């Protein structure tokens, strides 16, 4: 009887661990979706600022190029992550590598794009959207256990 209870507990523990890992993947999926939405919002803000001439065409071009890098990095992550059923040490390592590409491209977007804007109000607006995007990106990292 004790033996059966022990086996049931082990099975429950394994199921629980697998469920937690499944939750990690679902969290990563939601964060990836949030990041995609935030990038879309930043594109719209950038376009509006350009229309209002609050940023120059040259500044908008840099923001566009750096946003494209971020979008493609998130795309790579999303495309790879969706092929997995659950996270294990191998898949986690691969996804953390792709997460590193996302954070690197975010850093470049901030340094070469947002921080180069002179007007304080305009910089603040872009920083606010970037902060929202960063929240989603950091949630990806948290889901992978990388933060």
């Amino acid at each position, binding site marked *: 009887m004790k033996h059966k209870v022990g086996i049931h507990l082990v099975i429950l523990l394994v199921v629980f661990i697998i469920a937690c890992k*499944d939750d990690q*993947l*679902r969290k990563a*999926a*939601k*964060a*990836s*979706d*949030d*990041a*995609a*939405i*935030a*990038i*879309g*919002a930043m*594109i719209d*803000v*950038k*376009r509006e600022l350009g229309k209002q001439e609050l940023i120059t*065409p040259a500044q*908008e*071009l840099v923001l*566009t*190029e750096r*946003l*494209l890098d971020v*979008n*493609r990095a*998130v*795309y790579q992550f*999303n*495309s790879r*992550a*969706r092929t997995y059923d659950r996270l294990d040490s191998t898949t986690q390592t691969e996804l953390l590598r792709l997460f590193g590409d996302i954070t690197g491209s975010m850093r470049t977007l901030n340094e070469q794009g947002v921080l180069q804007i002179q007007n304080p109000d305009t910089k*603040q*607006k872009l920083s*606010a*959207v970037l*902060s*929202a995007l960063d*929240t*989603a990106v950091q*949630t990806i990292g948290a889901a992978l256990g990388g933060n």
Partner: protein
Amino acid sequence: MGTIALLLKLLPFITNITPVIVAALAAIRAQSNMTTAEIFAHAGSTLDANEKKLLEDLERLNPQP
């Protein structure tokens, strides 16, 4: 932290709040009803749309001869 936090951070320069809340609730409801695979697929579609917009902007800002 998720869709609500994300949309709340966008509030500073969004003047009309109601569509933001409506969008937040719709996004949360949508994600809750989706399987993980569907969420990844939705993210993929959004990223594709983003790429298209960004390439249009590149063409506009840096037209190739």
